[in-house]
């Protein structure tokens, strides 16, 4: 299990990413929307873009709206609440890191993200389950599994593997846990 970002009490009412601010994407910024998303995640905040042209939310982050083509986008904190749209369990031998659950989650804002649901047995993650976003701070095991390392070791030099694993390790990871109304 990865460690979750601390969510302050009452945060669910305002939302995981609610900062009270809406940032209008500035094309002159020195980093693009993907880097800004990563940066917010690293700071414990889930943000989503919303198109001011067609009022729809966007994921993954982009420089223009895939629905209407507008570049007039704003970035908002997300409450991080959603519903499991589909789920699978990747079956792996223990030496490959063991079974791992993968889910597609539909956020209330109307966008879908790939993730996984923690805090439940993989078999108990069902379509329709109400879930709440958590942000895993590094170090987490994503991308640097034994299986991946073994794969890579065959194809590449050990130093390259270590380098890639290190780069992957520092990325925060969006995961979900079952949403409990009482905690809200």
């Amino acid at each position, binding site marked *: 299990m990865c460690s979750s970002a601390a969510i302050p009490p009452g945060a669910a009412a305002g939302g995981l990413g609610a900062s009270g601010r809406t940032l209008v994407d500035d094309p002159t910024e020195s980093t693009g929307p*993907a880097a800004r998303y990563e940066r917010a995640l690293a700071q414990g905040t889930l943000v989503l873009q919303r198109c001011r042209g067609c009022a729809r939310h966007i*994921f*993954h982050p982009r420089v223009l709206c895939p629905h209407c083509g507008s570049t007039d986008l704003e970035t908002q904190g997300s409450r991080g609440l959603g519903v499991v*749209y*589909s*789920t*699978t*369990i*990747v*079956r*792996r031998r223990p030496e490959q*890191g063991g079974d*791992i659950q*993968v889910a*597609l989650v539909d956020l209330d804002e109307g966008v*879908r*993200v*790939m*993730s*996984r649901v923690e805090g439940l047995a993989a078999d108990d993650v069902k*379509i329709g389950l109400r879930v709440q976003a958590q942000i895993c701070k590094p170090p987490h095991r*994503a*991308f640097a*599994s034994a*299986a*991946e390392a073994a*794969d*890579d070791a*065959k*194809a*590449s030099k050990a130093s390259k593997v270590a380098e*890639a694993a290190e780069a*992957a390790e520092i*990325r925060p*990871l969006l995961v979900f846990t079952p949403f409990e109304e009482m905690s809200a």
Partner: protein
Amino acid sequence: MKASLRGSAAIVGVGQAGMGEAHGYTEMEILAQAANAAVADAGLQWRDIDGICTASVSSPMWVMSVIEYLGLKPGFIDGTMLGGSSFIAHLMPAMLALEAGLCQAVLICYGSTQRSAVMGRAQINAARRRLDPQPFEDPYQLFNPVSSYALAATRHMHQYGTTREQLAEVAVAARRWAQLNPEAFMRGPLSVDDVLAARMVSDPLTVRDCCLVTDGAGALVLVRADRARTLPQKPAYVLGQATASWHRQISAMPDLCVTAATESGRKAFEMAGYGPADMDQVQLYDAFTLNVLLFLEDLGFCAKGEGGDFVSGGGIAPGGHTVVNTNGGGLSCVHPGMYGIFLLIEAVRQLRGQCGARQQAQANLAVVHGNGGTLSSQATAVLGVADTL
């Protein structure tokens, strides 16, 4: 434009090589063997080939490597890479090029030794994650492509009550067809229970819900219809073709139960002037059992959600109500990373009446449907004999 393109070109030569296991041969070598067989089958010489379409799972500049190896100086080149559907998608630009006079004979070809090669699938996948990262999916360690299709299967089961037994029926039907095909890689007995009891790869798909990992190469030659009539083989006219793609990653697919085959199929049938009910044979890209259900639904052979019932009780097995994947498919015949070219080859052989024990008495109209990526690209072609023009 499309009306004039309908039937304007025909497949006049097909060839295969290295089917199953091609120990000691490179993928380029078996590709060249298949291409050579296709050119000979067409009754042409290498100097006649002046157009080329190909794609590779691992090499971005593959088309130039093929040009070099075969010694071509083509007037038309297409290296579009849409995954397994590529070779069916290549038909349209090739037809346009033939019609525009850019070239006189197009070779469409593919080869892979992913089963026997030193750099196998696991290594290619690892390298790909570096060269072509999917940063919003890769960290979750899904086992692609299986897990993406598994997510779609879970959803289809939830939404329409599709069962694992119904998915297994697709694998069993493919095996029964393969038993009629001496070229098929897996021909042993297979039951629904065998499929259900096989090793789970990514729930709900077991290893028997997944296509084979084999070697193999396939090639075909496309010429204008007027020239096709002068060549030795019975021409397989391209009556309709369309390609559609709406996403790359499975997490970006709007509805996991509805593919872009709804668009490519509608357009291809419209161009051909035929519908699903007219088809004598149906060749569908069965990378996973679920795919066959999705494509039967999306191409209009049954209503959305009814794919499971459609395939039940041997519906698509030999002797069933619909003739589907007569070579044994990617599930039991051959699947060297990308399978689309083999769908076309099987359809052409059926149209010509060259399929031996699995030959259909009436096989004059075929729909051939290819899929690529993670349900990401969909390419449909309608092929027919001269009487269907």
